[in-house]
């Protein structure tokens, strides 16, 4: 019972972290700016303004956007497939499909975070990485652990 509850809780947590990392515009923050992946929040005269992203390498930015969205999609899909496989998998078999989907989600968020680290804000001296960036890497670890778990877990066979 504990195993099932634990796995589902960790999976839902990873989905939530992925969603926050993908949606919240806080990959790079300075004192007055909170930016990426979709727009830029600027604090001028103690009012936050939302503007478009300018002067970014377009291909890299859009790749990061696409892979972070894909990571969310695959993680959510993996949850549904896990529940479905709980009921339909023959005894003694492993949850391979779920594991593979979760592994793809892990790969996608790793690609997103890596490209972001390498190509965007590489030369900026002011500012640092925001909470979305940190959550992206944390969810990478979580999804990796979950993927390995699913690939090892078996349904009992008597």
């Amino acid at each position, binding site marked *: *019972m504990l*195993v*099932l*509850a634990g*796995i589902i809780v960790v999976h839902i947590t990873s989905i939530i972290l992925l969603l926050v990392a993908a949606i919240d515009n806080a990959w790079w923050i300075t004192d007055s700016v909170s930016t990426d992946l979709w727009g830029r929040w600027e604090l001028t005269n103690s009012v936050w303004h939302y503007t478009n992203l300018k002067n970014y390498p*377009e*291909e890299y930015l*859009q*790749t990061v*956007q*696409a*892979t972070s*969205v*894909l990571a969310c*999609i695959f993680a959510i899909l993996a949850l549904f497939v896990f529940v479905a496989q*709980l*009921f339909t998998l*023959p*005894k*003694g078999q492993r949850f391979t499909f779920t594991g593979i989907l979760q592994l793809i989600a892990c790969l996608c968020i790793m690609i997103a975070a890596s490209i972001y680290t390498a190509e965007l804000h590489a030369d900026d001296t002011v500012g640092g990485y925001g909470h979305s960036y940190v959550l992206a890497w944390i969810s990478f670890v979580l999804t990796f652990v979950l993927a390995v778990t699913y690939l*090892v*877990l*078996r*349904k*009992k*066979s*008597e």
Partner: protein
Amino acid sequence: MRVPEQSQAIVIYTGWERHALLGSDIRLSCSFFSWRWTSEDVTFSWTYRPDGSRDSISVFHYTGGMAYVDNKGPFRDRLEFVGNPARRDGSILLKNLDFSDNGTFTCDAKNPPDIVGRPSSVRLLVFEKVPIQAGVITGSIIGAVLGLLVLIVVIYYLMRFLVARRVFSLSVSKHGKKKKEGSQQRQGPVPPADPSKPVRRMAAGARSNQQQRTVVRKTEGVGGGGEEGPGRVLMTIELELTRKNGEKGPGGEGGMGRSAAPGFLSRLANQLTFK
């Protein structure tokens, strides 16, 4: 004395936004719809408002059959009239665009007595290189990966179906007129006529041995003679399956919990193991 005719509304059409490369030419089209015939006094006028400015200047005017282009403003020697007023076309051609030409162009046309109308504006954007529309790469990556996933899943199930079918047709041709049990895809290969040798080797994705054995046995019992039509045998197998699952028949859910009356969740949870 001539009574002035009633004026009706005139509708003016231009584009919404135009993109152009630095140094190229662009044609800004303007046309109108009016219930009346095109009169001889039809007029077209274009005004230009630069981006970030609130004042607009007039750059083109056509009236009385004559076109007057800008000869003092930002477009001198760069503006040309390429429209056909008789066909209600008041388009202008801008040559050799520069970044300072970014702005809004407004076309106003009048077709007396139809003068009541709203001028229409087109926004001009000059680029150094034509940009990829926002989100095209994002969307195409997402779409391609998801499409690939769907394709892989479909191919996987198709292969399973084809392999099972091929095994079935092979066994049928080998066993000829013998009873054709287990002929559904998920049942795996056709078991031999001798029920004392349960089938061990399964096709991909078949159920566990116990289930297969059960089905074979039961079908043999019901089948009787050897000349059953395949339709009847299939129906029998389905019935056996559903009945077996409903009553939790022999060798069914072996993973049931140890407690006397297990809840649904605990039953589910006890099915997971790492060994």
